[in-house]
């Protein structure tokens, strides 16, 4: 009995101490999409959110020039067009840089 209560007390101590070290795990996901179009000039980059990990909808997250992250619907035309334009732009940029070097 004494051994059991000893084990219980140790467990209590270990648990309480370990659990007090709370650390925030924040997961961010787009839950719906922006309705309007974002002007191309404001977009600095994008990220892809897929249903394959912890998020539950597919989304394109555009990063804007004032540091905002905007959720966009990948099934809309303007979104995919924007991505293609961005890719082209980067490709052009890479070529230009390669020429300079």
């Amino acid at each position, binding site marked *: *009995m*004494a051994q*059991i209560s000893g084990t*219980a007390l140790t*467990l209590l101590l270990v*648990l*309480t101490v*370990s*659990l*007090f*070290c*709370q*650390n925030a*795990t*924040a*997961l*961010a*996901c*787009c*839950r*719906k999409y*922006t*309705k*309007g179009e*974002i*002007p191309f*000039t*404001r*977009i*600095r*980059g*994008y*990220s*892809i*959110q*897929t*249903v*394959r*990990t*912890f998020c*539950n*909808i*597919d989304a394109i*997250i555009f*990063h804007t020039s*004032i*540091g*905002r*992250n*905007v*959720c966009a619907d990948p099934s809309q035309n303007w979104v995919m067009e924007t991505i293609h334009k*961005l*890719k082209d*732009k*980067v*490709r*052009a*940029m*890479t070529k230009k840089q*390669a020429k300079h070097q």
Partner: protein
Amino acid sequence: MNDSYEDYYLETVEPCEEQGYHNVQHFLHVYVHSIICILGFVGNILVILTYAFYKRTKSMTDVYLLNVAIADILFVVALPLIIFSEQSDWALGTWSCKLLRGIYSINLYSGILLLACISLDRYLAIVQARRSFRLRSRTLVYSYLICGAVWFMALLLSLPTFIYFERYKPSNGQSHLSSENDRNQTNSRNNADGSEYLVTLPGDWYTFQEKQYVCDWFFKENHTARQMKTLVPSTQVAVGFCLPLLVMAFCYSQVVFTLLRAKNFQRHKAVRVVLTVVLVFIACHLPYNVALLYDTITMFFLKECSDHEHLRLALILTKSLAYLHCCLNPLLYAFVGVNFRNHFRKIVEDAWCLGKRYIGARRSSRNTSEAYLSSRRSVDSAAYDNATSFTM
């Protein structure tokens, strides 16, 4: 430059950050979950010790009770390890993520399914008493087989968790491109193959996206992702709640009718115990399963951040209530039985006497207590064993 910006700025939707309920989660982890773990551990270890040292697993009920205690104890051991791993970035690697989540799932299923087996066993013992007497007294093999089947089924139902849970950084699978306008403002640099530009952007996105590892779903295909994300929680609701609830509702209602017809002075107590068992099961598991079902149905819907957060809070709170059930099981099933209490009393007395002997006290008290208990034990004959498992 910023004239037209405000127009669309008002309509923009940003990713929802899940940071609203840290205080609630912190409170639950520190106070509620630790208490549940300690009580569950102590209660279930006492059940296991009682069976290990004093009470041979004589009946089917005993085998089930022992297995429930084992499932519950694995559950309360896995729970603090999961909480600890979440906070330590799953530092033990992806196998610890798979293993802990998988073990958690196995014990959740086996614990609940075994409770359904217990109700079935009591139904056979009381309602079908004549028919089942020979079968039950003849062999324990059936109960071992049933327990084996339950554990195997629990393992089978937990396989998706073992397979599709991974430890990864949330930023995986995302590509970041820069456009030419911003080259002066951002730290753009060449990728390894020189084809793309990676950008480090100011703002919250990267700080919270690249901070920590998570242990969560990870699929290779969208199709599998959608399928599994719906299938796993709906199976949990169906097999881990609805099926056992239906079995318990049928068996215990039959048991209660039979008991009420019997002319036994203890029948009211027995009925009360049966009702408590069912009501506690419903009270602990119904809220979480309702929340889980709603979450599964609306999983792929578009929703507001606030709606998602409310649902998340509901899931967090109801889940803690469901956890509570594993430390109530020893009280509801094992210690409620007269037989079990007597065996347990013997443990306490023996341990007490052992302690006394260490200090150098007389041995005579031990002998008297043993004599007293052995006489008690012979009174509780095997025939009463099942009926007394829920007599107070």
